[in-house]
């Protein structure tokens, strides 16, 4: 199929903000993707470092005069660059005033030329055939497909050569291993199950493909939320439902994209804080959908699930813990009951993680060595004691920050895969 001249062309949109350390390598990696027709649109979102200069120098860029129209309003665009070198003819760099990730993606949508757009984090590593696999749902359904996502994997400690993962390794840190378990649960169980009943509400911002017209009709990414990826999909689905147009959202049950996760508690806290705010904002914007039978699965299952189990869970857990401490101080605690309940909750939590591990082992088995499996099992047993309380606290703090009006997205300053930890700055 990869030789076919009939595959639809794809525009890859990758916003970059202060990415001078890795942007050139990352673009080189994107240029080697195995797909017949694609353009790469790097949107330099007002970087304060030398991101643009490095791109111009490395890829021999010159200003381009191709006409475009601001279908979606964005911050001003300074210039659009293309390469003089024919080897990079599918590369376009957009330089614009800083407006955040959502604004950068909107600028990319305005400028890109293809009907299918693929939004990615510039530092992600895509599998060679990722685009082909992602395009498939758009060409295979009887109904119109408005978006598709795939499984995201954790690349920390993996061996990367020429922009490709050549050996999958388990990270050395507990925090990254706990996130591997968490990603298994989210992608191999959660999203896979939601996609089966067409109830997906989130396609990861790290790698997702969209029908450009459907995105533009929905108004593009929302620049007023930090959860722009989830909000866009919910808005697109809501709009399609309200129009009464049959549609679907695809999900590819294959690992297609590898990303770097935080290996520092402080950075993880900021990330989860932002995710919590994004969830709350999206649910608030689309509160009309919750329990609304008009939206079918989305109204009766997906949004209530996100309300109770994603947004409210940290709050309920926190108040449960506070109540436990209050009873402890008042001497009213029934220890037998408390301990037995703790054991039920703990065993259930571990069971959930082990089931996800089982699915991974049964299907993909990316971690080939037996000792890696044992390490992941240990991580699953420890997670409820160390990792889970921390992310709960970060999510709670996110809700508090939201009430206090904090809107910052946070800049990711990465040192690159196979190097050191990532840092996040506000």
């Amino acid at each position: 199929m990869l030789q076919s001249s009939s595959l639809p062309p794809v525009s890859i949109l990758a916003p970059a903000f202060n990415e001078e350390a890795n942007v050139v390598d990352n673009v080189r990696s994107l240029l080697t993707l195995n797909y017949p027709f694609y353009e790469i649109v790097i949107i330099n979102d007002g970087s304060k470092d030398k991101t643009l200069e490095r791109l111009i120098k490395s890829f021999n860029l010159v200003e381009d005069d191709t006409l475009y129209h601001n279908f979606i309003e964005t911050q001003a665009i300074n210039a659009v660059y293309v390469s003089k070198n024919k080897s990079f003819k599918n590369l376009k760099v957009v330089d614009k005033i800083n407006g955040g990730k959502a604004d950068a993606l909107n600028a990319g949508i305005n400028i890109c030329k293809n009907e299918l757009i693929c939004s990615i984090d510039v530092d992600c590593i895509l599998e060679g055939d990722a685009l082909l696999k992602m395009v498939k749902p758009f060409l295979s359904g009887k109904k119109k497909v408005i978006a598709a996502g795939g499984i995201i994997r954790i690349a920390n400690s993996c061996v990367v050569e020429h922009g490709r993962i050549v050996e999958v390794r388990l990270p050395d840190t507990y925090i990254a291993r706990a996130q591997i378990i968490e990603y298994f649960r989210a992608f191999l169980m959660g999203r896979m199950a939601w996609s089966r009943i067409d109830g997906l509400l989130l396609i990861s911002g790290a790698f997702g493909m969209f029908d450009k017209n459907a995105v533009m009709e929905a108004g593009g990414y929302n620049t007023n939320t930090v959860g722009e990826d989830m909000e866009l999909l919910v808005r697109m689905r809501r709009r399609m439902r309200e129009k009464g147009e049959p549609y679907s959202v695809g999900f590819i049950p294959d690992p297609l994209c590898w990303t770097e996760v935080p290996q520092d508690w402080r950075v993880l806290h900021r990330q989860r804080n932002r995710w919590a705010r994004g969830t709350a904002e999206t649910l608030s914007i689309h509160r009309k959908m919750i329990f609304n039978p008009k939206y079918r699965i989305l109204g009766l299952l997906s949004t209530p699930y996100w309300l109770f189990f994603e947004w409210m869970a940290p709050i309920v857990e926190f108040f449960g813990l506070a109540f436990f401490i209050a009873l402890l101080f008042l001497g009213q605690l029934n220890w037998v009951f408390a301990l037995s309940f703790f054991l039920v909750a703990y065993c259930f939590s571990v069971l959930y993680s082990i089931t996800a591990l089982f699915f991974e082992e049964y299907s993909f088995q990316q971690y080939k060595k037996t000792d890696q499996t044992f390490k992941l099992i240990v991580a699953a047993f420890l997670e409820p004691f160390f990792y889970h309380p921390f992310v709960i606290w970060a999510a709670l703090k996110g809700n508090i920050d939201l009430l206090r009006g904090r809107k910052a997205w946070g800049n990711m300053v990465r040192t690159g895969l196979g190097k050191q930890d990532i840092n996040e700055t506000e």
Partner: protein
Amino acid sequence: MKTWEDSEWIFKINAAFTLLFFVLILSFILTLLIIRLYKNRRNRLKKIYEASAEEFINSYLFEEDIDRGVLVEKYEIENLKTNLQKKVFLKSLVGINENFKGESSIALKKLFHQLNLDAFLLKNLQKGDWDKQSRAIYLLAELSIKKNNLVATFLNAKRMEVREQAIYYYLKVSTGKPLEFFSRLTTDLTPWELIYVEDSLKYYYEGSMPDFSKWLDHKLISIVIFSIKMIAQFDQFENIPKVIPFVDHPDEKVRKQAIKTLCKLSCHDILGKLIDKFPKESTVIKKEIISAIMQLGIRVDLLAIKTHVSENDWSTKLAFERVEQHFNKLTA
């Protein structure tokens, strides 16, 4: 100390669930480890079987002083006892077959029958799960084993993977009528499947290309669109008069493909008709007509539609301005 009978009901429920979850955790861990051991062992065996199969096939093909009948019988009894052995052998056979033509290829097909592997594949086809069925069809195609009527039933299978392999089979095995299976289709093919057909025609089919105008009146719209597209892909200029009426087809996708095909075949005569149609067309077709003007026309043709490009239709307006910029550059 309270006994179990004296304990509160809530404690009993908690204890029961704890025990249940704990047992499930242990069971999953155990299963997980068993799967790991099973897969490791299977991978080791695969390597051994592969080596054995390749050695046997080489002996069968190239050694002269051997009794092939005895060799085959002995190999079947000793080395093709399990499904995994048969599966690995077939994979090796197909791999080797790809590198041979003529007598060696015929000998390999003979070997396939001698080892009764046809029975194994047919069993998978009739009773297997979808993955076994699609693999079996693929192997039949690769080895050019003619089972047209049997494979025909899979052209309308529920699983796309099975349908794809059935299409591939027809194109690979056919010597003169690669698209004969179109007549057996009952539902539209998806764009993905049509790309698959097109690819197989280009890269795997070895006979002469059919006249695609045969399917222009097919009952399935996807086949009509495909045929119009293939007329352009394979430069069948003689079919231009048959394609022109499709520019007025009620289905937008058919009209779009007809315009694309006529452009590709450099049918300049169509331009006047397209310009006349422009004001009444949808945005998608308007953009296609603008693209056709860029390929077939001149600046004057573009100006002929200018008044019909709405100020509010940004998408058409942008396409128009881009082509205008293109013509400006040409004349500059």
